[in-house]
């Protein structure tokens, strides 16, 4: 099993609903977020292009954050989901420094926090809350080992890219272009 997410940059309007839905679903304290929106504009008026991306932890197959964690708090569970065990985390921040995507943050309770792909929901057969809420339906989630999953189907159909592939982390967040 290999969970992944595809983000359709052509449909995303950057409304940040994914951010607030994640915050309420996962009780992320106000002032912090596990996912966020990036807008990139290229060109000179009026020859312009814009890409909008909803970003989060890439749940890398080769995750530097897991490798550098001194306590084993950062770990990988079934489906390749990268998680932090808050009881084992000492908040040293090594993982934060090692993440090329800046996907982790120090939770005010003293541990490091990040996107879990809503593991508590997917193990019950539901989608991550960001996927479920997105008004533009630009987020596709699923198991890449299952060719019929939403993520597999859309990645087969569309061109995509990953972010900072040169970091060699094998990210599992795909951006449809």
């Amino acid at each position: 099993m290999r969970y992944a997410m595809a983000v359709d940059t052509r449909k995303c309007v950057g409304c940040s609903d994914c951010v607030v839905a994640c915050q309420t679903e996962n009780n992320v304290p106000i002032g912090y977020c596990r996912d966020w929106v990036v807008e990139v504009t290229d060109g000179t008026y009026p020859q312009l292009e814009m890409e909008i991306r909803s970003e989060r932890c890439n749940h890398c197959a080769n995750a530097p954050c897991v490798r550098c964690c001194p306590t084993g708090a950062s770990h990988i569970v079934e489906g390749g989901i990268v998680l932090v065990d808050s009881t084992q985390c000492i908040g040293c921040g090594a993982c934060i420094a090692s993440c090329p995507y800046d996907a982790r943050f120090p939770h005010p309770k003293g541990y490091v926090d990040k996107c879990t792909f809503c593991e508590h929901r997917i193990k019950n057969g539901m989608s991550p809350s960001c996927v479920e809420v997105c008004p533009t339906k630009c987020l596709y989630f699923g198991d890449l080992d299952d060719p019929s999953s939403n993520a597999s189907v859309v990645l087969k159909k569309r061109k995509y890219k990953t972010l900072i592939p040169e970091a060699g982390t094998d990210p599992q967040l795909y951006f449809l272009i």
Partner: protein
Amino acid sequence: MANRREFIKISLYGAGFLAAGTGTYKVIKALSKREKEEITKLAIDLKRTPTYCEVCFWKCAGWVYKTPEGKIWKITGNDEDQHCNGRFCPRGTGGIGMYYDEDRLKTPLIRTEERGKQVFREATWDEALDHIASKIKEISSKYGPESLALFTHGSGSAYFTSLFKAIGTDSIAEPSYAQCRGPRDEAFFATFGEEAYSPEITDIRDTKCLVLIGSHIGENMHNGQVQEMSDAIDKGTTIITVDPRFSTAAGKSKYWLPIKPATDMALLLAWIHEIIYNEYFDKKYVEKYCTGFDQLKAHVKDFTPEWAYGITTIKPDLIRKTAKEMADASPAVLVHPGRHVTWYGDDTQRVRAIAILNALLGSWGRRGGFYRPARFTPASPEIPAYKVPSKSWTDLFPGKFPVATSPISNALIDASIPENNPGFPIKGWFINGTNLIQTIPDQGKTLKAIQNLDLLVAVDTMPMEITGWADVILPECTYLERYDAMRASPHRKPALALRMPAAETAYNTKPDYWIARELAVKLGLGSYFPFEKQEELLDWQLKKIGSSLEEMQRVGVKNFDREYDDLYIADDEDVTIFTDSGKIELYSAYFKQNGFDPLPKYIPHEEPSEGYYRLIYGRAPMHTFSRTSNNPNLTDLMDENTVWINPKVAKEWGITNNQLIWLKNQDEVISQFPIKARVTERIRWDSVYMVHGFGHAQKQMKRCFGKGASDTQLITKVLEDPIMGGTGMRGNFVTFILEKTETEVAS
């Protein structure tokens, strides 16, 4: 045409709509599979209650989930709801912050010093309402009940409207008319005999070509439309966006027309010219349903793409190509009517041009254009007839705005200033759910009007600027703490949605229904509110259709089958069109009768002088204007606005990204707070752009006080629409102040 206003009201509930309370409608579906799963899987001791959202007017129906401790956990969409299809927008998801905002109004307050100083004392509800009742009686006996005006917005409007009609006034204004959608409604009434409704009856779902004139779907988070536009992008639908700003929608469009601001009319006329003179129009449709084609054809003869190029800066071949795209998609083409259309003062005429374009393309009443709405109207209890006011809002300024079908908020404000010589004076304002200071342009005038009032009451959840000017502040509870009238908006299918309390009422706040009824009782008008509690009325209404409050609490939304299979006009169908001629009026005899151009004309608008830039404003997807600017969840997503400046302009001024600057308008008004510059290619060099609703001057709203700048403060010049009284707000120009001098800081 004396009865036109009444006629339109009747036509809204006439043919095409379902009659009330016949009890035979089949419920299409109750609980969806996903929702059932969600309940069984997540439930520990979890409770969820239905609501429909009050963060904006779209009113999506959803579920409020609570933790076992009873704290609100999250709000999600109801799968059965046509407004949201199970997906709330960021504002709806963050609606939770309206409840938990610690800056909320907490108890009734009565002013103890003169207006302008915010000195209040806490009062009981009884005391506050007694005070208001006695003032209302005093004004009624001294000036007549028509001297009381209601300014209202949102779900509470129904109850306060009822109350004020019972008191004997029809000066009941929603700023959403004259400050927003009014020109569109009148243009559509004049052309099609019907408005564009709310939610709009735009069939984006099935369109092959979507044309947006300054409409920034995706930044305006009008949920159903954003969803349908996203589906349209998926399907490869042609999108044409006309905007001086590279909006989010422009970024997703096949064609972006970076038009020179204030020249949209020229583009629309050139498109009409192209569509007529290339015989692109839907001939059968125009012949059967439209009138005035020959006059229109003659009128647009000279409005060629070359003519429009000189005005709009849009190249003729692009005008031609986009006209052809529309024609190729016809009738599944939608030239979107927009929503906030009060721009330049000729707005009714501009939207008339949009309506005409749609008519020529045959999109009104057709799949992929405008569908025909259906609505379920719940039964109304018997109440005494409302007194006919001896003087009406139309007598305030006789002869002005003859086409307006709703009271005009800014005209009521004008009538509160004696030197404007109104037909009768407005002496009392009751304001519900609208922050007039940030809503109505020309703040100086609003403040002057306030000084002439004998009573100003503000009902709100938050200490907005307007509450600071009130004599009595009534804190209403949020939508998460109350029942309200069922949502029964028109849509593809008739539907009802329930709102019920999800949480304990916080502080000493009350629902609008309770406030309106208590006040009615104190005024001896209790018979207009025969049910003591909202929920009793709801149960009575639902039992009339074989349902009950208990059932609605479980399902939240009920969709009904349409009475007839008439979502679109069938081929060659004879349909009733509610205009005078019974036809779609390309040429408006009604406008002509009232002294207005029967066909839209291009009028050049004032341009910015050297060193000044046109002030354009809009929405951000995570805020509903000033209503949400202190919401803790939503300020976390965006806590201030920025002013967008083209890099060429920024370079000339030496302005860098994130630099704090002040804006000064043509009338020397300087923004009260500095605003961060956003240097971006996404805006034309002759304009600047900012999101509306920031720059709050009310200290009690701690999160948003002084964050960003208020565009309303800078909109001192109002371009009044002579047809319906709309306040055009895009004729203001600003320049930059990089450092404030001492005197400027002091002022």
